[in-house]
């Protein structure tokens, strides 16, 4: 069982909030503590293959009928052993690409193959989303990622995280990891292949206007909740949607996902590879694929 270390860190952040100004500061700090206490400790055992299997038909309906999804290149993923799946992330706090890809992966390799996904702390501490843990979703931290890979599992990470997921809709066809390179160090340390997973269409499920970075900073959300953004979008059923904390109803945009051939870092970049060089390479191959997928689309949402 892995102790995340996140809870401690977040608790320290929450404590730091106590020094905030007046009542608002104390309220926010209290809320932060509540959230922190809800962040589950990563337990890989919480993944429940029977539950996943029984819910696959539901996911299949959503994915096939609503998002008209198409997933290509699953054969590129190594059949066995640990693998780091690195995806670009889209769709605000409700990310259809994750649903579509999780279904495709579990159907293709079977629910017996251990498969975990890293998610933001806030997602896992949200009331009503505890079922995600049965799907193998664990809080994003280097410790959890290492535990999952060491157990021989496939691990899906979205390095862009909240930064990428809330990018404006007009940047929908851009891979933007915000320079986060932790996933490369992880793959090098654990000596596992990276499989880039490129998805298109997610950023058309609402009209995303701004990440609201300045807003998040001025409200000190980055210190309290590790939240660097407070996104602003036009989304159903809210109209103007600030923060996207309660989620939204995504528009039925066509989602296409493509898994690319695996990158064996030590083989391709030598025994002492340069992390920046690998990062540039991963971004380039993903951006090229995203450009190709985008060029197949004629209309937003319809695809």
């Amino acid at each position, binding site marked *: 069982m892995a102790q995340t270390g996140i809870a401690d860190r977040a608790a320290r952040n929450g404590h730091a909030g106590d020094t905030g100004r007046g009542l608002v500061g104390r309220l926010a700090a209290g809320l932060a503590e509540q959230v922190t206490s809800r962040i589950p400790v990563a337990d890989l055992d919480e993944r429940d293959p*029977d539950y996943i*299997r*029984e*819910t*696959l*038909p*539901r996911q*299949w*309906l959503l*994915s*096939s*009928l609503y*998002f*008209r*999804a*198409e*997933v290509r290149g*699953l*054969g590129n993923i190594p059949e066995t052993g640990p693998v780091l799946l690195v995806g670009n992330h889209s769709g605000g706090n409700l990310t259809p690409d994750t649903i*579509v890809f999780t*279904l*495709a992966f579990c*159907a*293709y390799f*079977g629910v*017996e193959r251990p498969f975990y996904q890293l998610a933001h702390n806030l997602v896992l501490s949200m009331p009503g989303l505890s079922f995600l843990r049965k799907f193998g979703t664990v809080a994003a931290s280097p410790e959890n990622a290492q535990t999952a890979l060491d157990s021989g599992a496939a691990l899906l990470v979205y390095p862009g995280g909240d930064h990428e997921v809330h990018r404006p809709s007009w940047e929908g066809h851009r891979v933007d990891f915000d320079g986060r390179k932790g996933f490369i160090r992880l793959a090098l340390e654990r000596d596992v292949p990276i499989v880039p997973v490129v998805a298109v269409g997610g950023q058309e499920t609402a009209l995303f206007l701004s990440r609201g970075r300045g807003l998040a900073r001025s409200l000190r959300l980055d210190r309290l909740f590790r939240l660097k953004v407070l996104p602003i979008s036009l989304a159903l059923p809210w109209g103007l949607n600030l923060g996207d904390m309660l989620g939204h109803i995504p528009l039925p945009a066509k989602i296409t996902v493509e898994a690319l051939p695996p990158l064996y870092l030590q083989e391709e970049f030598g025994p002492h590879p340069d992390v920046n060089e690998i990062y540039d390479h991963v971004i380039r191959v993903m951006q090229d694929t995203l450009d190709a997928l985008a060029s197949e689309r004629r209309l937003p949402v319809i695809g």
Partner: protein
Amino acid sequence: MRVGAAIDISAPSEAVWEYVSDPERYLHFMSGVTRWEVVSDEPRGLGARYRMLFRVGSAEVGGLIEVIEYVECRDVAWTSVTGLDQRGRWRLRERDAGRTHVELRLSYGVAGAGLFGSLAERVAAPTVRGHLERTVQQLKRQVEQEQTRRKAAARRAARAGAP
């Protein structure tokens, strides 16, 4: 959900059996199938195991299957070991000499998936049925073309052999 397709093929049952008992040919005539891989020591016969997938909607579904009935030139039936619950059967019956009635049956579902499970089965049914129908049509075309080729080869051989 149970779906099926049937067709009459102008060939003896042995000729059809060559196709339906040979996993290497499956990718050439089975519609929608994206993978049919032998995972047992024996590629055919009772107890043979395959990993198969076929595309329905947004996913490739299937899993590990095992042959549970194998009667030469008549029946081959399989059931799922992992993945989607399924039971399938090729049923060959030679009605007149040189004419074979071929049936392909498949029942599938996910046990325990409840209401959404049965809904998904129904939504998928037209696609699955379409795959099965195209499969038997492609089988018919391939077997009959092979028959024609063999007859032509026999005629050529006979002509060449004649003085």
